[in-house]
C-alpha cells in the first residue's frame, strides 16, 4: 500500500469553485423535491404506505452499496491525483473507470426495478407516491448517466494529459459524483424505508 506525505490543509475547495455553486443549486432543487414529497407523505400517510409497499428495499440497499463503493473508488482516485507529478495515471484511470462501471450497474438495477414496479401495475399517474418516485429517481438516474459520461471523459482526456488542469478536472468530477451519491443516500430512506404510520 502506498504511503503519502499529506499536504498541509489549505482553505481551497477541491475542484473548480463553480462546481460548488452547481452542487448548491442542484441539491436545492432536490431538497425542495424531498420537502414537497415529505409534506405530501405526512398529509396522506395511507396512500404513501400503500405506495411504498411496492418498493423493493433489498434492491434499494444493493443500489446504495453500489453507489457508496463507487464514491469510495472516486475518493481514492482524488487522493492519488493530489500528487500529480508522482501519480500513477494508470491507477487513476482504473479507479475512475471502476467508479463509472458501478454507475452503469446502478442504472441496470434501477431499470430492472422500474420494470418490476410497472409490472405490478404502478405507473407515473398511479398515485402521488409513484409520481414522486418516478420523477425523483428518474432525475437522479439522469444525474448518474451524466456522471458516467463525465467520469469517462475526464479519465480518457484529462488524466492522459497529466497537465496542471488534471487535478482540477478529477476533483470537479469527484465532487459531482459524491453529490449524486449523497442524493441517493437521501432518496433511499425517504422512498424505501420510512413508511408512514
Amino acid at each position, binding site marked *: 500500500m502506498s504511503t503519502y506525505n499529506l499536504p498541509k490543509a489549505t482553505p481551497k475547495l477541491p475542484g*473548480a469553485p*463553480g462546481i460548488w*455553486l*452547481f452542487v448548491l443549486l442542484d441539491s436545492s*432543487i432536490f431538497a*425542495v423535491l424531498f420537502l414537497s414529497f415529505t409534506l405530501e407523505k405526512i398529509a396522506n400517510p395511507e396512500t404513501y404506505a400503500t405506495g411504498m409497499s411496492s418498493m423493493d428495499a433489498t434492491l434499494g440497499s444493493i443500489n446504495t452499496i453500489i453507489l457508496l463503493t463507487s464514491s469510495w473508488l472516486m475518493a481514492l482516485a482524488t487522493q492519488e491525483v493530489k500528487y500529480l507529478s508522482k501519480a500513477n495515471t494508470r491507477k487513476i484511470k482504473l479507479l475512475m473507470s471502476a467508479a463509472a462501471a458501478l454507475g452503469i450497474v446502478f442504472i441496470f438495477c434501477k431499470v430492472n426495478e422500474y420494470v418490476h414496479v410497472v409490472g405490478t401495475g404502478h405507473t407515473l399517474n398511479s398515485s402521488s407516491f409513484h409520481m414522486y418516485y418516478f420523477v425523483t429517481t428518474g432525475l437522479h438516474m439522469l444525474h448518474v448517466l451524466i456522471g458516467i459520461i463525465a467520469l469517462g471523459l475526464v479519465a480518457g482526456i484529462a488524466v492522459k494529459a497529466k497537465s496542471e488542469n488534471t487535478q482540477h478536472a478529477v476533483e470537479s468530477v469527484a465532487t459531482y459524483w459524491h453529490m449524486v451519491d449523497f442524493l441517493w443516500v437521501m432518496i433511499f430512506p425517504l422512498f424505501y424505508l420510512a413508511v408512514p404510520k
Partner: protein
Amino acid sequence: MITKKQQHNFLIWKICALAGPVYVVGEALSWAWLGGFLPPPAQNLSADQVLAFYTDNNLRIRSGMMLTLFFAPFYYIWSNAVSKLMQRAEGEGGMLSNIELMGGFATVIVTFASVAAWLSASLHTDQKTASDILTIHDYGWMWFNPTVMVTFFQFIAFGTVFLLDNGESRLMPDWMSWFSYAMAGTLLLALLTPFFNEGPFAWHGLFTYYIGLGGYFLWITVACYYVYKAICHLEAIEKA
C-alpha cells in the same frame, strides 16, 4: 487602435446586448402581468373554467399576447450578441456559438407558436365551444413547455464555451458556466407537463412554472449583465 468601423460594430453589439433586459421586462409585463399568466390558469381546469378565463379576461389576454409577440424577437437579437461573444471565446471554427444562435431563434419560434394558440383561443369566443377553446389552450401549453430542449441546449452551449475558454483574458466568470448547467437542469422539469394535470409537475406547478420558468428568467437576467460587461471589456482591450 480601434477604427471607426470597429467602434460602430461595438455600438451595435452593445445595443443587441441591451435587447436582453428589454426582453425580460417586456415579457414579464406583457405575458405574465397583462396577459394574466402569473399565476397561470391551472392545468386541471375544466373546459367551462377555461372558457370563463378567456371570456372574463378577453381584452387583457389579447393585448398581453400581442405585446408578447412584439417583445419575443428581442430574445434572438440578444442571443446574437451572446453568440458573437461565444465565438470570440471558442474561435472562428467553433460550433457551440451556432447552437446558441439557433437556440435563440428556436426559442422565439416556440414562444410565437404558443402565444398564437392562446391568441386564437381568445378570438371569437362566442362562436367556439368550451371544448374548442380548451383544445387550443392545451395546444398552446404543449408548445410552451415540452419544447424546452431548444433552450436547454443554448444554456449547455453557453456554459461549455466559457468553461473551456483558457484564453488570457477570460470573458465570463467560471461560476457562470456552472450556473448555466444548473439552470439548464431546471428547464428539464418542463418535459414532465404532459404527464400531470395537477400537482408540482403540472404546468402551473411549483417545479415546472416557478422553479423551471423562474430559473430561465433568472439565468437571462444574470447573463445580460455579464454579457454586456464582457463586450465592454473586449472594446477596452481593442482600444488599448
